[in-house]
């Protein structure tokens, strides 16, 4: 099994490298027309229209180049025996076919490649199609690739290559799970002989109706994705939804409050989707990937509008980006709406528990209640983690943690009064066992209330002294409540709320991970990273320090990574985006 897996990896890697050309970008419809539609199973289709662009884009990314240059671990990985062997294999093809790999790529796979994976038992059929532009070169490539496979299989004690005919086309097989053929300038590889035969017949008859081009899903997905992606995929979700476990998941998730709160609208979009479409694009400095579902915002299930505002309101407020930010999140979740509609949204058992909990908490809240707090709260929430250099105490925590803050929007002036009173009461109760002392200060016209732990009182439940990472504090800025673990961060956020560096967005859930903040954090507290480097790479302490320094420098160049979800009028979109730092370009050649 392991042997075949290795063979598969070798073959796939070779195919991808050799199939990375863009001499003539194929029309997706042509590729789809070459693939016979699987009979009844659901299917996953991955299409690379311009294979060469994938490699060229990767090579052009500055972070990739700087990783090759500056990270010893990467250099070591590239010097590993399998990678050396792969490089040698590539040189072999270049030598045998008398062309540099970019030219080979153009000839062997300039028409694009498509991989169809059926989903089902026994095992389901799969088919890889590599469409070339030069028939002679494709033929030569195939002959040598099969020879290599045969030799590799023999070396490992596996079966030898056998050759048979189907409709006057040669089919080469290695054991039961690898079958390959060539029709003109198209290479076909499948794990099932019968499916390969079907593909050969299909190519000869060229009946579009019997192909994936004749099915609505893939073509629709491609249209929905638009643009000029490096790669895209279509997943036949309509058939998957017919499976009992999937149906049970959707039925149960709606009853579960936690799932509803965290991803209710997303799960609902998935429930309504007939297919899933995704694409990978190159953008200046990085990559962008998106996943789209063909579902309408107006059809969102009753009760799940707590995740999605009305069209005239922003989906989320600006991301908070204080100095040395590590992670920032902004999302829409209307807790007031949830509380008001709890009879329909929350299942009876959980609702009773929540109402009982609210009663208990209300007892310690002065002149207010949980219900009042929720009803006056706003639908916008933001969370941020940032690296801070200032020490909060003379005693250091055993484990340093980044500072964190949560910002909640409110509805009207009353929210501030309720939140202030509630937090003071909660701090009074929670602070007793920890010896918290309260301080108030004015900062930029805002009252900051902060609490400090006693440095002399032992706390048995905190063996790592984690409490010395935090001096809990809060403040109200306009109608927003800020609760933070670090007064310095809170002060930064006061400025941020008044002059945001980011903008509000129609996306209802946004996340951003900033590499510079991560790098600053690792640089300040490198011990765990150095230790892990020693233990995983088997290097000396001084070498590990060098490696971590290089790693931190490299992380610094990675810019930021974003994920956001948006319920657009006609589609649900989950978007990933990575943009490297402009500094990365200076590192790369």
């Amino acid at each position: 099994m392991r042997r075949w897996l290795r063979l598969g990896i070798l073959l796939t890697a070779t195919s991808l490298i050799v199939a990375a050309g863009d001499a003539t970008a194929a029309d997706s419809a042509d590729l789809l027309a070459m693939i016979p539609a699987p009979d009844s199973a659901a299917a996953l289709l991955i299409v690379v229209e311009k294979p060469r662009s994938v490699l060229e884009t990767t090579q052009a990314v500055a972070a990739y180049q700087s990783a090759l240059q500056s990270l010893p671990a990467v250099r070591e990985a590239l010097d590993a025996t399998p990678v050396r062997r792969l490089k040698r294999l590539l040189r072999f093809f270049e030598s045998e076919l008398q062309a540099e790999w970019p030219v080979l790529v153009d000839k062997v796979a300039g028409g694009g490649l498509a991989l169809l994976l059926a989903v089902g038992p026994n095992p389901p059929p799969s088919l890889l199609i590599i469409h070339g532009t030069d028939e002679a070169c494709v033929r030569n490539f195939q002959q040598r690739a099969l020879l290599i496979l045969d030799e590799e299989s023999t070396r490992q004690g596996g079966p030898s290559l056998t050759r048979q005919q189907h409709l006057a086309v040669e089919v080469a097989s290695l054991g039961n799970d690898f079958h390959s053929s060539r029709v003109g300038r198209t290479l076909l590889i499948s794990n099932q002989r019968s499916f390969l035969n079907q593909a050969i017949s299909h190519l000869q008859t060229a009946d579009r109706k019997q192909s994936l081009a004749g099915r609505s899903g893939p073509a629709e997905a491609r249209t929905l994705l638009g643009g000029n992606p490096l790669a895209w995929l279509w997943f036949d979700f309509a058939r998957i939804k017919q499976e009992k476990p999937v149906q049970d998941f959707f039925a149960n998730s709606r009853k579960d409050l936690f799932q509803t709160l965290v991803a209710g609208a997303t799960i609902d979009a998935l429930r309504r989707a007939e297919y899933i479409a995704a694409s990978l694009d190159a953008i200046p400095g990085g990559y962008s990937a998106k996943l789209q579902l063909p579902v309408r915002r107006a059809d969102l299930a009753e009760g799940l509008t707590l995740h999605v505002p009305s069209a005239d309101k922003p989906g989320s407020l600006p991301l908070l980006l204080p100095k040395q930010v590590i992670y920032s999140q902004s999302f829409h979740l209307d807790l007031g709406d949830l509380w008001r509609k709890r009879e329909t949204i929350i299942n009876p058992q959980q609702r009773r528990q929540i109402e009982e909990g609210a009663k208990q908490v209300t007892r310690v809240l002065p002149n207010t209640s949980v219900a009042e707090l929720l009803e006056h709260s706003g639908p916008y929430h933001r969370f941020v983690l940032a690296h801070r250099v200032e020490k909060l105490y003379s005693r250091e925590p055993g484990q340093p943690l980044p500072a964190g803050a949560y910002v909640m929007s409110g509805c009207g002036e009353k929210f501030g009064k309720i939140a202030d009173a509630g937090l003071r009461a909660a701090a009074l109760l929670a602070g007793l066992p920890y010896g918290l002392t309260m301080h108030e200060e004015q900062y930029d016209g805002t009252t900051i209330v902060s609490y400090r732990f006693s440095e002399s009182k032992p706390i048995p439940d905190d063996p790592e002294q984690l409490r010395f990472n935090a001096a809990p504090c809060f403040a109200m800025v306009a109608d927003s409540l800020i609760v933070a673990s670090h007064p310095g961060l809170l002060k930064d956020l006061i400025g941020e709320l008044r002059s945001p560096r980011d903008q509000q967005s129609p996306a209802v859930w946004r996340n951003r991970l900033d590499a510079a903040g991560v790098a600053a954090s690792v640089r300040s507290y490198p011990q765990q990273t150095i230790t892990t480097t020693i233990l995983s790479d088997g290097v000396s302490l001084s070498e590990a320090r060098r490696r971590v320094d290089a790693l931190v420098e490299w992380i610094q160049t990675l810019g930021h990574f974003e994920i956001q979800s948006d319920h657009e009028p006609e589609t649900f979109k989950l978007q990933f985006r990575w943009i490297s730092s402009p500094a990365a370009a200076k590192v790369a050649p």
Partner: protein
Amino acid sequence: MKPDQAWQPYTPSAENPWDLAKVGHLYRRAGFGPTMAELERGLADGPEKTIQRLLTGQPADPDFEAASEFMADERSLPAGSDATQLAAWWLARILHNPHPFREKLALFWHNHFATSLAKVRNARFMLGQYRLLYEHALGDFRQLLKAITTDPAMMIWLDTVTSRKGQPNENYARELMELFSLGIGHYTETDIREAARAFTGYTIRDGVAHFDPKQHDAGEKTVLGQTGRWKAEDIVRICLEQPACPRFIVGKLYRAFVSEAEPPTPEFLEPLAQLYRRCGFNTATVIETIFRSQWFFSPAAYRQRIKSPVEFVVGIVRGLEGRVGTLPLADALAALGQLLFSPPSVKGWDGGPAWLNAQTLLYRQNLALAITSTEDSRFGRRCDPAALLQKHLRNGDAEAIDFFLTLFLQNDLPAESLQKLRDYAVSSRQHRFPKYWTESDIREHRWRTLAYLTLTIPEFQLA
């Protein structure tokens, strides 16, 4: 062999010469297996000097100590570290410590006072226990037993921290007598109940043991025939005073360092037990006597133990002079049944034949392949048998076979195993390799395979 003769020093003779097999045997027992340089030096130096070198270790290596201490810092290895990280830290010490014998003893005591992170849930406490075991590994067992009694990891592991006046927990008292000092049959249930009262009132404060007189049962207790207002250290003293104590510990040392094939009679071990008491429970003295003895270098001890997973893996990596990461090694050891700091129960690992079954044997072979093939991303080319051959200026298949068999088996193997290696070397030349492989690729691949095949010879499983 009679007891008084068995423990007499071994002296090389024409009939029983000092040879490579004995050097390898000594290095497997007093460490984790030899390198080629150690084998050659051991053979040249003779038993006296070689044993002395193993017992005292090589000069301290400042780089090793600095790296180990750095990784043991609270910021590097916090209390919440997982078992694999913790095990990897110790494995790094085992691999690189210039005093491997001391690590071997620490491992012995870890199995003797088997404590697991699974219950302790605090890597700092486990690390503290390791330091304790390492510090006393070769020293006075009485001090070790006293110190382990109030070791925070042990106090959590055997519930001393929850033992209160009026509600004594018997776990520590029972294991102190049954597993740590006397063995079954040398105490009664009443002794345990009474002793448990003496262990009340001990808690952990700021990471160290703290005695709370209010929670301690200060009444009179009668334990093993002695009556008094005993505290924890008194019970430890009473156990150590029992004649069964040195016999029990010596018996465990015998199984770990001499043979696990057949249990020796009490009479056979009596000279060692008497020595242990006479020298004040100095473990190094007893072990040195064992290593210098005729019995140790006789067939009764030679290859009479099955390698533990740690011995198996570390022996390969040391032998190949590799510099692999210990995190993947620790992971692999868990699959082989020996994750350090996580013994399966208070009795430790069963050891002996329990280490091997069809599955673990297959895992051992797969791991040997992963380490030697240079094709596994966990280990890469950091432990390359072909590079080692080049370093030692060995060329050609015959030299490769001779090198690996000397290194790992000291050329002591059945003729048919040797023939299989030679057959492979010949037959592999007839194999058809992919066209893009160079001559060098093929040769190095063959040498790596020869190293791997050496490690699959059954005798390599024996210590």
